[in-house]
């Protein structure tokens, strides 16, 4: 049986705010996340007619 954890909207916003403070001074972490987002954007440009998500989900 699955163990379910629920996170309410209020809690999400609170944790998100704490996280943003946490990484505000962490340039390496910000750069790492930016690099992932850029890779996702590059993937979209590279495969405009075959979105990566569809391919991945079909194989999974």
């Amino acid at each position, binding site marked *: 049986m699955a163990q379910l954890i629920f996170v309410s909207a209020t809690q999400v916003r609170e944790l998100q705010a704490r996280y943003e403070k946490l990484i505000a001074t962490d340039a390496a972490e910000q750069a790492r996340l930016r690099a*992932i987002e850029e890779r996702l954007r590059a993937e979209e440009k590279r495969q405009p007619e075959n979105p990566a998500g569809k391919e991945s989900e079909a194989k999974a």
Partner: protein
Amino acid sequence: MTLETFYTLTPQHPMVKRPAVPDTPGVNAFVNFWNMAALAWGGAGGTTPTLEKQLSEGWVYLSGGTAAPFDEDANGVLCNRERSQIVEIGFQGINVTDRNQFLAVIGLHALGENAMVRIALFRNILRTERLRPGDNTLAVLIDCPYDRAWIYLDLKHVKMPDGNASAFGFKGVTGYLL
């Protein structure tokens, strides 16, 4: 009610990008593995499970010996990320609203009696769970804060409070948009 898959991430397919189209939200999602191991695991050294087995069965092994001490995370926040075994899941809904929810269903396989995982959202600890030997499913239901918000979930491998640890494997995560 039937739920349609929003995204699926596995070690073999660690990234999903699906642009939004009219009436259908899009998604960006990825999984990363922070997998510090003290041993030369799974390669030519012949330790098991071999890399070949992990690849063929589609999971990533997190070994027990290098699991983090149970009490190393202070103030409710995951620490020592670079020196830990962490499965990092990130996803972003596109053309969604704060009336949506995200359900992440995570598949883990515990190899032994003493496998524990610490689940965190935005690095803040939600819960620490002891896994049963064999297959385990964790489900995290998250209210969507706003359109295009990135959500970051971490699964950190920790030892039992008494210092024991057995290993587990990450098999995959399936996301649903509610």
